[in-house]
């Protein structure tokens, strides 16, 4: 982080009253000062607009200076009161407790402290400004006091709105990045990698053409996976190619225990689907449905258009959702949650993923998407 980035981050951490202030601790006090200076400048302009009388008042520089100083004293008093109260609150409740606050508790906390600080700051600041600089009329002017309190509240509420949206946006970005990372981890799952390589090595001498074919399929799978990770969407055809490469690799490993069928009309291959939205369903069917089954079984992937939507179904006749007692279906949920989160983000309520039991055993995963073709 360079200096200007650090300064920006430190300012942001001050603005959001973060528990981990960026930069040296004393910077936080500087930010309070800078912010108070800005607020005082704002109030000076508003004050002139409301109260200045006579055409020459605008050009009276000394008047500007005096008003500004008045406001600055009050703003600083308010600013440091709020700053102090936040510090006090943090040591009284403790960081962990504040972070665990419910929505309403948090709202109350972040409302009461600034307003309390405002009152305390006015109580300290107004006499100070009046005592030092003489001709201050504010406390006698009820309207002015009410107006400034309301104005402060408004400013405060605007900040609240700004920070809650910003907080939500950051949280969403964070979540998306995490989902992406998990997706990458899932594609590079070590059991799959090592078992595949072990099979290639095992076949190298005994059945070289098969070893070569397996390595080629594996390369196709890796290349397509990595490309898919960079694009949020691709065509159903791309996704099916990726799935076929995956299944060809697993077929070598499982041999006659795995059968698969991809039953998708050629014209549907141009439909747009979220990248890696189907492969994890096929992988779930293989890893949690067929691999733990002694007899193995079949994965069938089919797709069709229905009521203007694209329906894709992955079915297996494996051990099913409750399966064997060592619950091989554990871990299944992660991939599904990941797909659901990405569908929600991209299509909202218009996309669905449904998991149900198949008869007599196995699982049916049905993905419904809005139609749309790739450009």
């Amino acid at each position, binding site marked *: 982080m360079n200096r200007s980035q650090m300064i920006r981050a430190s300012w942001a951490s001050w603005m959001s009253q973060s528990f981990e202030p960026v930069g040296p601790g004393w910077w936080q006090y500087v930010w309070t000062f800078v912010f108070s200076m800005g607020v005082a400048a704002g109030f000076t302009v508003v004050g002139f607009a409301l109260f200045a009388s006579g055409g020459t008042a605008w050009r009276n520089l000394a008047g500007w200076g005096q008003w500004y100083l008045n406001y600055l004293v009050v703003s600083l008093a308010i600013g440091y009161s709020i700053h102090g109260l936040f510090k006090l609150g943090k040591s009284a409740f403790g960081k962990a407790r504040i972070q665990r606050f419910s929505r309403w508790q948090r709202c109350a906390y972040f409302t009461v402290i600034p307003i309390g600080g405002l009152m305390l700051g006015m109580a300290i600041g107004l006499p100070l400004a009046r005592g030092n600089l003489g001709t201050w009329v504010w406390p006698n002017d009820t309207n002015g006091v009410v107006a400034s309190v309301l104005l402060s509240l408004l400013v405060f509420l605007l900040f609240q709105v700004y920070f809650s949206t910003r907080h939500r946006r950051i949280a969403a970005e964070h979540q998306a990045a995490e989902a992406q990372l998990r997706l990458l981890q899932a594609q590079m799952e070590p059991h799959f990698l*090592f*078992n595949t390589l072990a099979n*290639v090595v*095992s076949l190298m001498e*005994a059945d070289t053409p098969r070893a070569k074919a397996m390595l080629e399929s594996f390369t196709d799978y890796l290349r397509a996976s990595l490309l898919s990770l960079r694009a949020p969407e691709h065509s159903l055809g791309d996704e099916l190619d990726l799935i076929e490469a995956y299944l060809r690799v697993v077929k070598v*490993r499982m*041999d006659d225990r795995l059968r698969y069928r991809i039953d998708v009309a050629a014209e549907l291959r141009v439909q747009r689907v979220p990248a890696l939205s189907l492969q994890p369903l096929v992988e779930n069917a293989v890893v949690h449905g067929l691999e733990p089954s*002694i007899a193995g079984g079949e994965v069938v992937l089919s797709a069709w258009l229905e009521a203007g939507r694209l329906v894709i179904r992955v079915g297996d006749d494996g051990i099913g959702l409750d399966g064997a007692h*060592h619950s091989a279906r554990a871990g299944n949920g992660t991939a599904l949650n990941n797909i659901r989160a990405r569908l929600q983000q991209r299509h909202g309520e218009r996309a669905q993923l449904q998991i149900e039991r198949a008869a007599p055993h196995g699982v049916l995963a049905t993905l419904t998407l809005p139609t749309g073709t790739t450009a």
Partner: protein
Amino acid sequence: MTTALIADDEPHLATYLRAQLAALWPELEVVQVARNGVEAAASIAAHRPDLAFLDIKMPGLSGLEVAQGIEGTTRVVFVTAYDEFAVQAFEHEAIDYVLKPVNAQRLAKTIERVRRALAAPEDSVTDDARLATVLQRLQPAPANASPRLRYVRASQGELTHQIDVAQVLFFRADDKYTCVQTAAGEHLIRAPIAELAAQLDPEQFWQVHRSTIVNLPFVAGTRRDELSRLFVRLRGFDAELPVSRAYVHLFKSM
């Protein structure tokens, strides 16, 4: 002649291990290549090989579960392509294992160790104790390891029997149920053995086999048969229960 069984659900890996073993240990006779855990367990019971190369992740029963049910003297070598936890545990307890793809040098080392162990059966007790430790560590404990179990309830038609666990001679897995044997008779409950094992007092209830937990106060003694399988005999019950190799050491230190 030394005999061995290979169990792996991926046929090419099993074939390759078999070829490597043939090259490095020509006198070893592979009696069967099993393609799942159930087949492996049955084959071990039928052929009683000296050695079993068990893949950890197999359909039916995992390699760990197969090991937990071995009754004779068959010695286990685990085989895995990738399993951090298992490999860590094996290293820590000095359990024999082989990594896939099988590397000739590593396999030669394992073979040497196994041969030494087969030649000195008197050391096998400590080996078995170590195996038991590893099995316990690697078998996933049931999530709901609730407080100590004092009673089990068995339904029989419209009736539900409440049985004090202190009165139970043994629990034995029976297909989809667990059979609860008391002096008065037997009842069936749904709780699996692994779940019961986690909930019973380990000082009083010993798991002596993948499918059996015995209540120690009822143990009358043990018997070793001509195939050096160990059986536990219970007071008030005229049949014997097999003790898995991994748990034989429990009775040695009695």
